[in-house]
């Protein structure tokens, strides 16, 4: 939406913003994946039309994506040569390319063996291969999209060394990130985006973390919905030393500790991709943790002795844990099923009669009442749920989970893809539940939502909890800092 910014040659420029701020979209246009509706792109003063990634590559723009574009069972050399092989016989070019790669590695201290196979390399090394690819293609402008999301502290430092060498060679770098420390550490200038607009562009030396955090998250809406006084009951969920690592050993959740009590809403704030999704999956039984102590109403959650999570969410539901998933269409509903069918999804075994059959008449009645209470439109329970708007779909999911009278409710991004009017009704719903004594864990990337609903706030970054605040302590700057990885200190 009407973005203008310029970057000086031979500098490192940071692009900051929360989810949906528009950073990735902007860069996608630059790299030829999308086409802009209007405006122009000037490289070295010359207007360019970039329609495909090949054109972008030719113009010297290289992009290192968050999800690597590498073929795992081929060597570094083959991955680099892909697309620019230099001839039908690979052999004739291989030796020359290998030599060139080794030179580049030496010059930028990339420490990658061209003959290594990708799946043998660490994640950090794989990223260096992506960078190597771009340099080989004579990229003058290097765009890195959230590069440190998968790196350790050490690997991050090595990456920055490489970027500095780059800069010395006169190349330009655009670093997309939401981690404020990185901006301060390495960039020369920084542009902050929010809601598809550029909020500000400043030289890094002249700004502070606080100022950046403020620009990044903006001013929250001062709309308070009524709620009962904060009077939390007994602990419903206790999480201790929760750890999750994936197959490659990357730590997705680091030593999480928190308690959730009846009648309170604890919001987990943070830019998505920092472990919140994984936390929700574990707490709902969709995924097994690597280690940790998780107690629900005094007893451990039923992870014991399980080799996989197949069928586990059912046990969790029976314990009274409801789950409104973040990815509604992938996890929460069956698009081809009717609204009525979706209202029993996950609870079908509870509603069957002694023949194993479902009483659709009763279900329809229940659904009709539900649709009226929650104001789901259009009021036709036979419609395929895929045809409803996002907001109405979400209302159905929430209604379904609420009807099960849970003691613990896990809610992920409840208002994603939902219209303004429905947002308020969903918020009222959640507050009502809280007032009735349900413990709610809310994951949200929208700080306004957190502000409106939370009693307590946990901020996550990099798989760990960087800070904990009570709602009275709510301070956009502070939260922005925590979201950006700066720990309470």
């Amino acid at each position: 939406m009407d973005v203008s910014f310029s970057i000086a040659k031979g500098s490192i420029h940071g692009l900051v913003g929360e989810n949906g701020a528009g950073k990735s979209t902007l860069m996608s246009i630059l790299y030829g994946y999308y086409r802009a509706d209007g405006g122009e792109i000037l490289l070295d003063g010359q207007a360019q039309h970039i329609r495909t990634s090949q054109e972008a590559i030719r113009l010297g723009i290289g992009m290192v994506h968050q999800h690597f574009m590498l073929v795992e069972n081929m060597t570094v050399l083959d991955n680099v040569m892909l697309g620019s092989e230099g001839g039908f016989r690979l052999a004739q070019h291989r030796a020359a390319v290998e030599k060139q790669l080794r030179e580049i590695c030496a010059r930028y201290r990339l420490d990658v063996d061209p003959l290594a196979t990708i799946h043998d390399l660490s994640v950090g090394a794989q990223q260096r291969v992506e960078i190597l690819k771009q340099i080989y293609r004579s990229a003058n402008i290097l765009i890195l999209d959230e590069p440190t999301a998968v790196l350790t502290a050490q690997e991050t430092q090595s990456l920055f060394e490489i970027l500095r060498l780059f800069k010395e060679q006169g190349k330009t770098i655009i670093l997309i990130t939401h981690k404020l420390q990185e901006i301060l550490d390495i960039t020369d200038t920084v542009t902050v985006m929010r809601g598809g607009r550029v909020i500000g562009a400043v030289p890094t030396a002249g700004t502070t973390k606080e100022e950046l955090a403020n620009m990044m998250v903006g001013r929250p809406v001062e709309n308070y919905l009524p709620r009962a006084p904060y009077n939390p009951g007994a602990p419903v969920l206790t999480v201790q030393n929760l750890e999750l690592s994936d197959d490659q050993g990357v730590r997705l959740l680091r030593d999480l500790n928190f308690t959730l009590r009846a009648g309170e809403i604890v919001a987990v704030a943070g830019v998505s991709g920092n472990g919140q999704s994984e936390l929700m999956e574990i707490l709902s039984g969709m995924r097994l943790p690597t280690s940790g102590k998780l107690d629900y109403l005094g007893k451990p959650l039923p992870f014991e002795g399980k080799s996989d999570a197949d069928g586990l969410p059912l046990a969790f539901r029976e314990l009274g844990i409801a789950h409104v998933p973040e990815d509604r269409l992938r996890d929460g509903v069956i698009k081809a099923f009717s609204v009525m069918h979706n209202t029993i999804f996950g609870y079908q075994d509870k509603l069957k009669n002694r023949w194993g059959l479902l009483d659709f008449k009763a279900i329809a009645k229940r659904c009709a009442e539900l649709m009226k209470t929650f104001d789901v439109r259009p009021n036709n329970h036979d419609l395929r749920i895929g045809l409803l708007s996002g907001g109405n779909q979400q209302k159905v999911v929430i209604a379904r989970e609420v009807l099960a009278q849970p003691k613990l409710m896990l809610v992920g991004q409840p208002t994603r893809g939902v219209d303004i009017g429905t947002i308020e009704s969903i918020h009222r719903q959640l507050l009502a539940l809280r007032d009735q004594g349900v413990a709610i864990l809310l994951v949200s990337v929208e700080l306004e939502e957190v502000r409106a609903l939370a009693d307590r706030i946990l901020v996550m970054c990099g798989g760990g909890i960087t800070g904990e605040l009570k709602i009275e302590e709510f301070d956009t700057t502070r939260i922005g800092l925590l979201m950006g990885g700066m720990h309470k200190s």
Partner: protein
Amino acid sequence: MNNQDLPRWATAFVMPVLNLLSALLVAALVIYLLGESPIESLGILVHSAVLNPEGLSYTLFYASTFIFTGLAVSIAMQAGLFNIGAEGQMYFGGLGLTVAMLAFDNSLPWWLLIPIGMLGAALFGALWSFLPGYLQAKRGSHIVVTTIMFNFIAASLMNFIIVKYLVPVGEQNPASRAFADAAAMPLLNQWFPILGETPFNISFLIAIAALVIYGVVVQRSAWGFKLRATGLNQHAAHYAGIRISKMIITVMLISGALAGLGSVNSIMGSTHYLSLNFVNGAGFVGIAIALMGRQHPLGIFLSAVLFGALIQGGFDLSLEKPNIPTETFIFIQGLIILFCGAMENFYAPAIARLIKRKG
């Protein structure tokens, strides 16, 4: 192009009919190229298979078997599994049936023999589908290739078993001995003599019952709900607490059992002995039926009758027109699988444009 965005009348009715017509159009073209008139051929076919009572009786006799194999493939498809092994499962089911009959046919009355025979068929059919189902659920082995392999293994194994154990001493025919008269399915021409000397038997009624049970279970039971959810969206099914591996194995067992039951019509209804390759492609017809009938009980029924008509009418057609042998209908089967299965969304963009223009 997401065909889930098209209205139900388009996906459930218009597109399948268009697909079927496309297949038949190609078939008509081939018939024309073979030097025959497609219209005339169609006339002969319809007359033979539908318009005369004896022919209709044969049509429905064939359809009885096809309903079972069609159900077998359909129920697996509801879970997202492509069971190509109905052919081998029906073959092996026939063995179960035979074993039961050879053991009991001289000692038990018909009203016990029939359920025992059916049980044997279903049991052995399920046995044959268990391993592919288990391997898919627990080891991720692709069910298409494993079921194809089991078809071949069944062919070889049954060959061995029949020749070595079942052929009565002194006989040349690769078949078991004939069952006692008690082990025969009651023929429907006992109540409707107009049907003539045809093997049309009560299996047809059992098949209809199976269709109804299938419809009720899949559409109205909690288990059926979980089955369809698994086939439509495994992520969501997992979220809903469905045990995916258990579902896969269970469905395959049921699928195999249904395919096995297909043998009851052919053996207990018609031949009264187990012979080599008696299945004769019925398992593959089941695939075409499941795709054409879109796994819906009514669709399966109509498709099974259509194929029954193609077989019966095709037989008479081949006698009158030597240029159109019965193998032509195997070709048509392939066309139907292509248009109704692989190219099922071929007309979707055109229909979407039509709807946009009208609306």
